[in-house]
């Protein structure tokens, strides 16, 4: 059939490229994580798991991912609700203000927080001025700083997912609930929230996988001591040249991202993006 030949010619080159530059190196990575010397073994995993630095980083990564996902959802729901009800012009302004950070690199955005949180930074100066603290607080290089930075980084993704979900809710539905006597909060909880749950799932997956694989923000705000899996991977590979542990950490990151994404495919009811 002619279509078959056409499809082959049109998608073939791209598939070959992806096979060579994505599938092959990833397959090599996974395979070599089970190699030690000339034998197949799980020894690299056992030795990585036995390192407390790995366990701490892995737990921190998951914890930070969950907290940031919850925080962005908490901030995005009222914002998305408010913005989606505005008249078109003001809506466009608020949308572009909220989405403009997406066009900037994580280095820039995290550097802003670095300046705010540093020992002589604005936050410490304000706290000292109002007398809440008498000497500068160490905000940098803490898990809290990473959570703050990542919440800022991923907020627009969650907002975007929720707004596109709320746009699909006919306004009459909420009006109906209200005119039947539901209070605004109850109408929101019983009508708007369930109807936008799909956006929450999509946004949550984007934010959570983004968090667990993010490098720049934990590197700048967590430093070399408060490590996540991503910064641990970088440190093991580039500073310590410990390729075995680095390979295992890379496979763990890959597995986490894949599992969460596959779960999304099952959870998703209808397309949003």
């Amino acid at each position, binding site marked *: 059939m002619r279509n078959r030949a056409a499809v082959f010619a049109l998608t073939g080159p791209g598939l070959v*490229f992806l096979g060579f*530059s994505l599938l*092959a190196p*990833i397959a090599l*990575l996974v395979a070599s994580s089970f190699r030690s010397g000339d034998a197949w073994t799980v020894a690299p995993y056992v030795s990585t798991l036995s390192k407390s630095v790995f366990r701490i980083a892995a737990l921190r990564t998951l914890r930070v991912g969950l907290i940031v996902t919850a925080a962005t959802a908490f901030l995005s729901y009222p914002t998305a609700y408010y913005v989606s*009800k505005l008249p078109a012009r003001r809506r466009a302004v608020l949308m572009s203000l909220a989405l403009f950070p997406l066009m*900037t690199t*994580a280095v820039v955005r995290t550097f802003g927080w670095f300046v705010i949180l540093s020992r002589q930074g604005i936050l410490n100066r304000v706290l000292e001025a109002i007398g809440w603290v008498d000497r500068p607080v160490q905000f940098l290089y803490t898990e809290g700083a990473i959570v703050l930075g990542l919440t800022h980084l991923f907020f627009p993704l969650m907002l975007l997912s929720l707004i596109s979900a709320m746009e699909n809710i006919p306004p009459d539905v909420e009006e109906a609930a209200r005119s039947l006597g539901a209070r605004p909060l109850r109408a929101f909880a019983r009508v708007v929230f369930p109807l936008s749950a799909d956006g929450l799932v999509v946004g949550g997956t984007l934010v959570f996988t983004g968090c667990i694989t993010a490098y720049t923000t934990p590197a700048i705000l967590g430093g070399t001591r408060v490590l996540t899996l991503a910064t641990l991977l970088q440190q093991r590979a580039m500073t310590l040249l410990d390729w075995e542990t680095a390979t295992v950490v890379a496979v763990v990151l890959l597995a986490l991202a894949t599992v969460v994404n596959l779960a999304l495919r099952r959870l998703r009811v209808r397309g949003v993006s």
Partner: protein
Amino acid sequence: MRRSRALIALMLLVYTFILSPFVVIFIVSFGPNLVFPPTSLTLNWYVRAVSMRMFREAFVTSLEIGLLAIMIALFFGVPAAYALIRFPFRGRETVEFAFTAPIVVPALVIGFALLRYYIQLGRLPVFPGLLIAHTVILVPYAVRVTAASLRNFDFLTEEAAISLGAPPWKAFFRIVLPNVRTGVLAAFILGFTLSFNMVPISLFLTGPGYTTLPIQMLSYMEYYFNPLVAALSVLMILFTVIITQVAESALGLSRHI
């Protein structure tokens, strides 16, 4: 509609949160040091940012990589998007999955695997390694944005051209491509911006003489604590905003993304 005050107050807080790092960066970039608010104003950091060779070279590398990567990604992605939209074929979903797979794989892991097996073991030079990595990341965007634009195209026009005797490739280049030109341009701008701003994909793939701008800023920050990075940040934001705004006003690209 009655809006509650609590909601408006919360909005103010949220928007303060979103914008404060940018305001801070903008202000300290004109200060003598990173103390806020600045005690005096200077353009010194901008002069230094533009005149330092390491940043100029990194900027050029970022430009080269971004432009080449999105062109190659479109070279693979546009035909694939066309096939996916135009022909209902067996295994279509699998092919579609393959072309979007790079989104699922963490960029850091792609970079690490390319470093280990192609650069260290396969002796591939750094620059092609970096280019391959950026291209892989951009392929899904090239496919998706082009496909979205092809979905609005009426393929009857193409069939008409073919039934009037045009060979299929000619019909594609003369009829289909001009009609989805804006979509392809949107993918180009989006892809370039992504590549230009992205860190993790390049982290493991830089070498002497080949460092992208965000990576160079990151390594500078490890050693120096001064507003130079703030000045560079402002310049980078301006660069990206100008590109996207020009594209938006000239072509109305946001409808395609």
